[in-house]
């Protein structure tokens, strides 16, 4: 009788846990005391139409999270965009504060008169165990090699990357599973010099179906510090949209990384990896053609069904009712948009969004930033619509776009935090309760557990405004697991593309290491799970990019380092000692 009662109680407890019960989601804004409350400056263009170009390039407030010095604490690289303005490399001091070491590290530059920094990416391109840094620019990219001593060396010229493009997004992933990280760059404009502006016809040719954007560039890592442009060979040449963000994942669990492209002014694209160095554009059958303003791609298994889903932000404001897209992965290379059904549709003028389990209850929540331009009391929209509705207008011509001056455009928008209600299949918006409902002009989100306390923290970059750092608070939150995976042999060292599954509370929760998913924000390379009340877990199953599948024991409430073929290993910084 007693055993039966205990079993019933356990079953009930399991049901409550699995239903998403847990603590509150709460954050504390600590950017000032952490020393990371820095201002971003967008590029100021000269000439009569400078402010229009300024608007079109105002997306470059980015953050990239990575442990560049292998001390076990995630650091941040934060971009600036105006000419001469420095970037920041925030070394995590491990005590809740950061120190800007960009100057001694040699990575302040990039905003020269001909180039605008728009994004950044950490990845270990030479598998030497130290993450390297790429600056993504309206201009040529810059690749810095991490020398392992706190300094970086510009190696762009040797790598082959010194090709002009108006790039705004980048991911690192191993598309051909050769153990070396390749790079895909998302280009917004065509490769035209926006600063010298040889032609005024640089803007989208259609505001819902534009085909005169920059597309993407795929660079294959040849080893030896060299990269080759394989865009055409891999099947991406025909994509001429205005790429704003790129996400990668193995959507169909075939062991090969696939690609989702969020495109402004028109159709998002999904490409499936054929496993032979080429990709197939399956947009038509997989997601259909949309006309929305795709801004962000983040990827995660929000419903714990073992398949990676996609969240794309669009524009849903008083004057434009697009709705975001939460693409539920159907497991057959098709997706169904469930944003309305799940309550994640309206986030105003959306930018970055990130999946993360903010209360450690086993279900991934969503944080979304938004807001284009908060300025004076006059609104730009009626002025803009007068231009848009002028018969025969040529949208590509920067000269026809009205000056924005001090006008506001989709400004002062409250951020959105959606709590995943688990088996109910819906999310609840609770940004105010969580303390993250700021109304700044958000752009990127860098998510990591900066203080190694098991709670995810969020760094929010804002265009022409100061950044924010939200520290996740463990207000009754569940237990957690974090893994730092280290590839070896035929897997890249960062283990980007590795997929791991943990079972707890009747759920199987997968996570995949990604190399820069999410607009203007690379999150930690560590994997994070909330496991609710679970204190002991079955071994974690890891499928490495090499294809090897391993099982390893995993500890709750600890950060565990696992190396392919070796199992649990000491953290790098502990090994050095």
């Amino acid at each position: 009788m007693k055993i039966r009662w205990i079993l019933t109680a356990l079953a009930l407890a399991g049901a409550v846990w699995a239903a998403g019960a847990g603590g509150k989601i709460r954050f504390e804004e600590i950017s000032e005391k952490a020393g990371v409350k820095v201002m971003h400056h967008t590029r100021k263009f000269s000439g009569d139409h400078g402010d229009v170009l300024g608007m079109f390039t105002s997306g470059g407030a980015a953050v990239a999270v990575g442990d560049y010095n292998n001390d076990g604490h995630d650091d941040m690289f934060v971009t600036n965009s105006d000419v001469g303005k420095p970037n920041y490399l925030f070394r995590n001091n491990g005590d809740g504060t950061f120190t800007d070491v960009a100057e001694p590290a040699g990575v302040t530059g990039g905003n020269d008169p001909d180039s605008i920094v728009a994004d950044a990416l950490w990845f270990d391109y030479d598998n030497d165990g130290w993450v390297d840094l790429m600056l993504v620019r309206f201009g040529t990219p810059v690749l810095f090699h991490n020398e392992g001593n706190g300094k970086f060396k510009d190696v762009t010229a040797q790598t082959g990357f010194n090709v002009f493009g108006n790039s705004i997004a980048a991911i690192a992933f191993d598309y051909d599973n050769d153990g070396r990280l390749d790079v895909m760059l998302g280009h917004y404009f065509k490769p035209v010099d926006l600063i010298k502006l040889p032609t005024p016809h640089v803007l989208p040719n259609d505001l819902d179906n534009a085909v005169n954007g920059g597309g993407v560039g795929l660079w294959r890592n040849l080893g030896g510090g060299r990269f080759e442009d394989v865009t055409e060979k891999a099947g991406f040449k025909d994509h001429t949209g205005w790429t704003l963000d790129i996400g990668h994942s193995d959507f169909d669990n075939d062991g090969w990384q696939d690609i989702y492209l969020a495109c402004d002014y028109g159709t998002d694209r999904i490409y499936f990896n054929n496993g032979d160095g080429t990709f197939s554009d399956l947009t038509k059958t997989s997601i259909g053609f949309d006309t929305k303003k795709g801004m962000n791609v983040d990827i995660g298994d929000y419903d714990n069904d073992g398949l990676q889903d996609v969240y794309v932000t669009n524009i849903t404001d008083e004057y434009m009712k697009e709705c975001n897209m939460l693409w539920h992965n159907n497991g057959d290379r098709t997706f169904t948009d469930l944003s309305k059904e799940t309550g994640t549709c309206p986030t105003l003028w959306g930018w970055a969004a990130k999946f993360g389990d903010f209360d450690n209850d086993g279900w991934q929540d969503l944080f979304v930033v938004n807001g284009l331009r908060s300025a004076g009391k006059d609104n730009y929209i009626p002025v803009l619509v007068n231009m848009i509705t002028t018969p025969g207008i040529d949208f590509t011509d920067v000269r026809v776009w009205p000056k924005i001056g001090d006008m506001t455009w989709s400004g002062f928008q409250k951020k959105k935090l959606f709590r995943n209600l688990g088996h109910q299949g819906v999310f609840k918006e609770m940004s105010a309760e969580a303390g993250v409902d700021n109304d700044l002009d958000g752009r990127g989100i860098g998510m990591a557990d900066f203080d190694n306390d098991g709670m995810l923290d969020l760094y929010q970059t804002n265009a022409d405004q100061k950044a924010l750092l939200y520290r996740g608070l463990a207000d009754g939150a569940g237990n957690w697991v974090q893994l730092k995976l280290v590839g070896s042999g035929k897997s890249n060292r960062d283990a980007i593309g590795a997929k791991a599954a943990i079972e707890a509370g009747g759920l199987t929760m997968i996570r995949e290491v990604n190399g820069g998913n999410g607009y203007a924000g690379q999150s930690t390379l560590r994997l994070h799970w909330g496991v609710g009340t679970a204190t002991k877990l079955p071994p974690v199953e890891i499928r490495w990019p090499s294809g090897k599948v391993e099982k390893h024991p995993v500890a709750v409430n600890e950060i565990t380092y696992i190396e392919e073929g070796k199992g649990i290993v000491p953290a790098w910084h502990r090994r050095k000692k």
Partner: protein
Amino acid sequence: MIRRNALILLLAAAVLPLWGNSADLEKYEKALLASPDDLRTGNDYRQAVIKAKEYDRCIAFFEKLTAANPDASNAFLNFGFAYVDKIPDAGSITQVILANTALAHFTKSIEIQPSWIALYTRGNSYLYWPKIFGRAHLGVADLEKAMEMQRKDSVKSYHIRSYISLGDGYWKMDDIEKARAIWQEGAKHFPSDAQLKARLSREGDELKEYIDDVLDPNKRVNTDLHELWEAR
């Protein structure tokens, strides 16, 4: 002779609604070329176009028809509707362009002949524009004129539309009191109308959510005018 032509048109009108596929669109077009101001045939043509999703063909046809018949008020009305019919299939910014173009054609129709249907249509169209564009007062002005016309007429079933839209217009101008008064006046004539009941039973955010949903540009607006001929 006139009587014979009228009979042919009547027969044509009886047959035309059966057409629905794109191959038959040509027949409607021929009928309209013979009778450009025929509101009913134009309406049926557009409904067939919606089924066939041949929006651009329809727009191109009415463009030529109105150019050749600049005094055909109903042709301009259908021309405007042809743009409205395309809106749900368009992207969010193209929707704005289409809606604005539709308004221009409705205006032309009113300039030629300020009919109840044209005033109601343009007035209602203004309400789909978000508040930020400040067009609700223009819609109210048109709908007040349509209301004035229908008040002088015997009550027709389609008159319910003006009560609903005029009330929505006042609601959009933040004059809740006047909005309710109009909806209540409508309820006296149409006591069982579900749309009026829905508005009168809601307040505040709930009412806003309801009307925002009704005026969602992504939803197809029913532009079928059959009610005009079937009215009781």
